[in-house]
């Protein structure tokens, strides 16, 4: 395929890898259809490209292979960016904010990053917060990396970890369920936004996606998505 953008237009569908295990970015409704921030962004891009959208639910283990084997055109799956990853795929401009926080019940004392020393911290393997936490956590913090968000939350709720690192919105989703153990925000690690992933050497597609994101930021439609799923405005520096 010479040009992914041309292919998409010719095909008339945009195939997007989206998460279904990471609310509020992506999960399923009672009809098992994907829903969430990432899904809305996918639909937005499809709409702007004038093509139908085909959502492909993925996990952190297979989202990149889907892209690399050309089974999807874009990965909109709350991807974080690092130098290593940038060698393999390209990233668009940021399309969503992600506030990484450290959360723990009231009675656990953690004031800052150094306070994680000696603590067991749960995190979802390969997620934005995992990359960030790995960078900044003290050497003697015991980081447990679970397969998916579900594992992380279950570990926290069952007391297998003292502390979780996750997005504020994710923690909010848990709090909304009134669990026996309440993940209260202790401090934010970093605001590390999410990017759309796409194959290397697709300048036309990359440019188009960036253009659509920029336009959506400008016309407030992206902000509407943020309001809907994160119950907050987009940060101005995104």
């Amino acid at each position, binding site marked *: 395929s010479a040009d992914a953008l041309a292919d998409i237009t010719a095909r008339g569908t945009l195939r997007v890898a989206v998460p279904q295990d990471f609310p509020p970015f992506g999960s399923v409704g009672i009809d098992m259809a994907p829903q969430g921030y990432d899904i809305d962004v996918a639909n937005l891009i499809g709409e702007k490209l004038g093509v139908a959208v085909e959502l492909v639910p993925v996990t952190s283990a297979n989202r990149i292979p889907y892209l690399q084997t050309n089974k999807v055109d874009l990965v909109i799956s709350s991807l974080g960016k690092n130098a290593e990853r940038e060698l393999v795929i390209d990233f668009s401009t940021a399309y969503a904010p992600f506030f990484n926080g450290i959360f723990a019940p009231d009675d656990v004392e953690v004031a800052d990053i150094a306070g994680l020393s000696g603590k067991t911290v749960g995190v979802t393997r390969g997620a934005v917060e995992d990359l960030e936490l790995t960078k900044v956590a003290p050497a003697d913090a015991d980081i447990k*990396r679970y397969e998916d968000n579900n594992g992380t939350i279950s570990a926290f709720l069952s007391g297998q970890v003292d502390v979780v690192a996750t997005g504020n919105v994710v923690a909010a989703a848990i709090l909304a369920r009134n669990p026996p153990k309440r993940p209260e925000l202790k401090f934010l690690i970093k605001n590390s936004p999410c990017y759309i992933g796409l194959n290397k050497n697709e300048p036309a597609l990359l440019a188009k996606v960036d253009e659509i994101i920029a336009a959506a930021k400008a016309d407030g439609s992206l902000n509407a998505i943020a309001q809907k799923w994160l119950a907050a405005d987009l940060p101005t520096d995104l």
Partner: protein
Amino acid sequence: MTYVFDFSWLGEYMPVLLKGIGITLQLIAVGAVLGISLGIACAWARALGPKWLGGIVAVYVELIRNTPFLIQLFFIFFGLPSLGLQLGELTAANIAMVVNLGAYSCEIVRAGIQATPRGQFEAGASLAMSPFETFWHVVLVPALQRIWPALSSQVVIVMLGSAVVSQIAAEDLTFAANFIQSRNFRAFETYIVSTLIYLALAILLRQLLRGVGWTLFPKRATR
């Protein structure tokens, strides 16, 4: 599509891989030793033990054999804490392996016991050995020898099945592979490498078990 394979990350992530291999090996070592022991005990209970105990064991065996390992693992790791039993992920993984292999080896060993000629039990009895002494000294070794190949295959199957312990953050070989590919997005390379390692481990394990069989059963015990 022209994908360029790149294994240059191997050096950097070697410690992660080695640790993963180490944990997988540890899991299978503990699982095999304790699991087979549990299996033998359960097989005794089912084939020769008191009826009520055999009944309990039967329920355990059926439950384990008819539900996925992953679900069993989840119940041990996420479920037991609500009963006040907090286990680390490695302990939980080890227990799950033991419980799982225990159920399978119970059925295998039981078949071996049941294939024992009745004369062996009677010879033991007529030498004034108690039923348990007869089982332990007379029946067990030939029974194990009879089913050793089947047991070995089951151990390899469980070793390969141990991959799912990565889901509770136990840092086995599959965890290592998933960890690496979540950092560098080199999924193919990491999965190919880990598949080859699993294959090598499976072959090695099979050989090892054959060797164990040779030392445990130096003589052709079955007829």
